[in-house]
């Protein structure tokens, strides 16, 4: 009796499928797409039809084509471009500042136990204090202009990044650090070659959480005392009962959030090819 032999080498090449297999793969891909986006598409279709036929109140939920038309007019006509730009500027500045402060501070705090222990109670206290509750304080201190808006977003985005970075550094496997020690690695080398790379996945969790928070806070900040920005447009359109315009601004905000997250996920995939990415 003979047995077939198998190729056990890693990364063996996969043969290109012939036509029939290609078709089968196409069908399989389509079914994956259906499973993932089917419900969403169904919901949108229901909205469109329901609103057109008056099953749901079309003044509150205008048909999707009107919303898309309002979005198109706003963007292509340029009316919303200024708002998008100022919103991006506010959240972008705040996010960049939070990253610029949060990651280095987190790396430092995670390394040095005494610093972390001294600052942790303050951190926990501020983390539990809603940034929105502090917004009036920031307005008192910084005025009603751009600074207080950027600052409240910065404040809210700082903590997820900071805490995730501290957590990442603290959770680095001590055994890996000990291994590096046996080769005579200095503290600086261990930090650069072991602690930093090991913390990257955790830092990304913080970054993604912060990016979402930045957009949430952006809306809140823009709803109070702003005269520009997507958050302002949502409120303004609602006051003036321009419901399609209101949904257009909401749609744009959702798209901003999705693209920010997609950008971070792409970056994460590039930096963490070694980790199993299941999300």
């Amino acid at each position: 009796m003979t047995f077939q032999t198998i190729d056990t080498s890693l990364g063996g090449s996969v043969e290109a499928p012939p036509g029939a297999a290609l078709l089968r793969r196409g069908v399989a891909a389509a079914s994956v797409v259906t499973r993932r986006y089917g419900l969403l598409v169904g919901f949108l279709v229901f909205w469109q039809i329901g609103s057109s036929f008056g099953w749901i109140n079309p003044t509150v939920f205008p048909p999707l084509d009107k919303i898309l038309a309002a979005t198109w007019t706003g963007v292509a006509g340029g009316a919303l471009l200024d708002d998008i730009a100022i919103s991006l500027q506010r959240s972008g500045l705040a996010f960049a500042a939070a990253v610029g402060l949060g990651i280095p501070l987190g790396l430092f705090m995670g390394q040095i136990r005494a610093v972390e222990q001294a600052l942790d109670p303050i951190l926990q206290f501020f983390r539990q204090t809603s940034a929105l509750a502090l917004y009036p304080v920031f307005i008192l201190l910084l005025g009603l202009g751009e600074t207080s808006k950027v600052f409240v977003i910065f404040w809210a985005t700082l903590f997820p990044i900071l805490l995730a970075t501290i957590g990442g550094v603290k959770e680095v496997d001590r055994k890996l650090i000990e291994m590096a020690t046996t080769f005579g690695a200095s503290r600086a080398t261990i930090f650069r070659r072991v602690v930093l790379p090991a913390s990257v996945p955790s830092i990304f969790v913080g970054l993604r959480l912060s990016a979402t928070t930045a957009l949430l806070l952006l809306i809140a900040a823009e709803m109070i005392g702003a005269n520009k920005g997507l958050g302002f447009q949502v409120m303004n359109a609602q006051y003036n009962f321009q419901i399609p315009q209101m949904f257009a601004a909401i749609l744009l905000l959702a798209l901003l959030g999705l693209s920010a997250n997609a950008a971070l996920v792409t970056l994460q995939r590039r930096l963490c090819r070694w980790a199993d990415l299941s999300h």
Partner: protein
Amino acid sequence: MSVVQTTRRGEVTLRDLSKSFRLNGQPLQVLRNLSLDIRGGEALAIVGPSGCGKTTLLRVLAGLEAPDRGEVLIDGHPVEGVGTERAIIFQEPRLLPWLTVLGNVSFGLQVRGYTAIEAETRARHYIRLVGLADVETAYPRQLSGGMAQRVGIARALTVQPEILLLDEPLGALDAMTKLTMQEELARIWREEKVTMVLVTHDLEEAIYLADRVLVMPKGTGSPPLLIDIDLPRPRERNEAQFVALRRRLMAQFGLH
């Protein structure tokens, strides 16, 4: 012996080593006045029940723990802390998950200041030695337990230590892989001509690999026992003398 021998590289002398820990507030002495000469190029196995201090002894040798009293001399010089002449292989491979096999094997050299190119050239030599040339670009999560441990062994060898310290290196592997890896270790020890100190709980592994076996009792009541393994190499596990030695060693632990 009064004859003065020329000092071979990788000679280890333990002088009156004592070490105790505090366990639940109670002091627990694991090493008491242990003195031992390990010859350069010798393979010494340390066996004993859990908690007998065999891993502690190895960690003291590695410089990862300081003894309470006594000293460790290497080639006649007292040492403190880790040193370039020693490399340790742990029970877990301790690979960096973000580096490929090549990256992990060259890690030790890069830490010691070699350029990436020098480090990788030398690392490739040891990757071939442990038989992993085809998976050079794989990441640790793609490797089996045995392959990962080979990476750890190659990484330790790259720095060309005089003394290789192994802390139950095959303890987590399945029985078949373990046998293969024991043969690998025997070959590597022969080819690299290093002093090997192997902590293991596997008596057969100790007899298969070592020139001498240090049997450490649980507690510090009775003194440790040193057994010479005078068997020709390569060793044959089913050969009568091997079996007899294994029986004798097992009897030391009350096993039959």
